[in-house]
């Protein structure tokens, strides 16, 4: 990534941190919180779904682990920050279990297995009433006491910056190249000595930890969570759609995706009410059919084509979309 981009990103983040000084409406701040939360979630997902090319449709498992972990552990008397850390550890345990089984599968089977795990967790959360409160839900302790929304907003920006930093770091590291090698051709990556199983699992660990923190933030803002909300397949889908819409495997993609998707769904909520998922569906179909590289990916490849304009008379080869297996 070019230095100028990084500079722009740094300025944008700095401005975002100043937003609560200007915006005082809770409603707007809550929407902004949601945008940043999903930007962070999309960035986290992107490490597994974008860079490594493993289509996880079960990230609700880690999201829910964060929210429920925080709620259950602090109910048992652990201090708030320790509960948060332990919730992340629980998410890592889930990642280890899910990744251990699912990463042996490829293509659609991986996606299906991740869905299956997340759904099993949802059913467990609904039925282990003593532990989770079942369908009724469970109370989540507030992380902040005064000027609540503003602080939640700042935390979501902070989480996005963290996820962004990690993504930038990884995309230029040896580890990042391993991930992309696995995405482009897992067998070749294996044959040149990439320990694919371990590398994929590490990527999932980072992703799951970030997702769990986001889940804890989300639960803590609303003070209450139910299984059909934080562990639902809709959350998994939304996370994946954010990243795919903006551009999987790009650093900026998930942030752009979150801005576009969340503001679109907020604007259309008043028109479609309960049916606001419709817009997710339409966006997904449009992205797949017309810009499979996402918004950022498409813009980048347009620029790349301009930079590498062939000499006159040269027969231009067909531009190819990156193959995501």
């Amino acid at each position, binding site marked *: 990534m070019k230095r100028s981009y990084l500079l722009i990103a740094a300025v944008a983040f700095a401005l975002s941190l100043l937003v609560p000084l200007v915006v005082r409406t809770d409603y707007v701040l809550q929407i902004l919180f949601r945008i940043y939360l999903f930007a962070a979630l999309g960035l986290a997902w992107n490490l597994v779904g974008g860079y490594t*090319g493993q*289509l996880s*449709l079960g990230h609700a498992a880690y999201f829910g682990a964060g929210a429920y972990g925080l709620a259950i552990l602090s109910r048992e008397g652990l201090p708030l920050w320790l509960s948060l850390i332990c919730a992340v550890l629980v998410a890592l345990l889930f990642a280890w279990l899910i990744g251990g*089984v699912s990463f*042996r*599968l490829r*293509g*659609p*089977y991986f*996606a*299906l*297995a991740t*869905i*299956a*795990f997340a*759904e*099993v967790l949802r*059913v*467990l959360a*609904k*039925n282990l009433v003593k532990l989770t409160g079942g369908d009724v839900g469970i109370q989540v302790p507030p992380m902040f006491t005064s000027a609540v929304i503003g602080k939640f907003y700042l935390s979501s920006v902070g989480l996005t910056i963290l996820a962004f930093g990690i993504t930038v770091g990884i995309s230029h590291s040896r580890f990042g190249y391993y991930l992309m090698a696995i995405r482009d051709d897992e067998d070749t990556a294996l044959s040149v000595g990439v320990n694919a199983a371990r590398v994929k699992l590490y990527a999932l660990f980072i992703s799951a930890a970030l997702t769990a923190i986001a889940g804890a933030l989300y639960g803590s803002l609303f003070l209450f969570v139910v299984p059909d909300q934080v562990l639902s*397949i809709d959350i998994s*889908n939304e996370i*994946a759609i954010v990243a*795919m819409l903006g551009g999987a495997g790009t650093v900026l993609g998930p942030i752009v995706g979150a801005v576009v998707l969340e503001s679109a769904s907020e604007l259309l909520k008043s028109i*479609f009410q*309960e*049916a*606001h*998922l*419709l817009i*997710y*569906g*339409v*966006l*997904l*179909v449009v*992205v*797949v*059919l017309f810009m*499979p590289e996402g918004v950022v990916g498409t813009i980048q490849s347009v620029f790349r084509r301009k930079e590498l304009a062939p000499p006159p008379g040269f027969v231009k080869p067909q531009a190819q*979309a990156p*193959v*995501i*297996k």
Partner: protein
Amino acid sequence: MLNGILTGALYALVGMGMALIFGVMRIVNFAHGAFMMLGMYAAYVLFQHTKINPYIGFLFAGVVLFALGWLTYKGLLKPIRGQSDFMQILLTLGLSLILSDGILLIFGADYHQINIPLLGKNIHIGPHITFNAPWVISFFIALVLAALLYVFVMRTMIGRAARAIAQNRYAAPLMGINVHRVQAISFGVGVAAAGIAGALLLPVFYLYPGVGDQFTLKAFVMVVLGGMGSIQGAAFAGLVLGVVESLTSLYWGNEWALAVDFVIFILVLSLKPSGLFGSQRV
């Protein structure tokens, strides 16, 4: 147990449709349950307007869903054929969101149920065994249709062509098979199977826009359990799943049934990926 077999026959129909689409054609169809839901709504609308019973109305649902499946293939899936599974998953996922929320917009989120006189009737066999009549009728219709579907895939030209394409995508067109035509028809048939199962479930299920969601995953479970590419495997797996679910409901409670399905799924994938009848590894 016996009720499980009755449910299982309808599952089998859903699963066989998916086996054709996913097992044979390798299209990862995340909209399968949404198509089933559409089948239910088609039969429902027909019933509301003409009072035609779903046991005849399922034919209408089948025709509508076939047309819809054919169009879906031609319009949406054909352009991305040959691209990765990743794209198919996202496309069909998007489609399923569009279908279920489109229905939500049109019909609202309310639960509907149809009232036909048959519902209250029970069939008694011996002193202890009682069946609810609608289930029994659905069961026999599903059985006949499952047999027809099997014949379609294994014996007709289209079915053979579809399997030939599955074996070798490049050789099939060389043998004079019109790949896209065959696949569009097969996709339509697979989707129609789901729609018909939906119509047959109408008398015994509540109808709401999200009713199909869990069936998408169940259909995948059946295909994997039955073995990739095996139509009869999926049918058998449907019966197994029906029985397992009804036993789970009986001993542990209804809410655990879904979890048991997925545990089966994960176990099959990790321990015996070729499924019960499949020859291919997944």
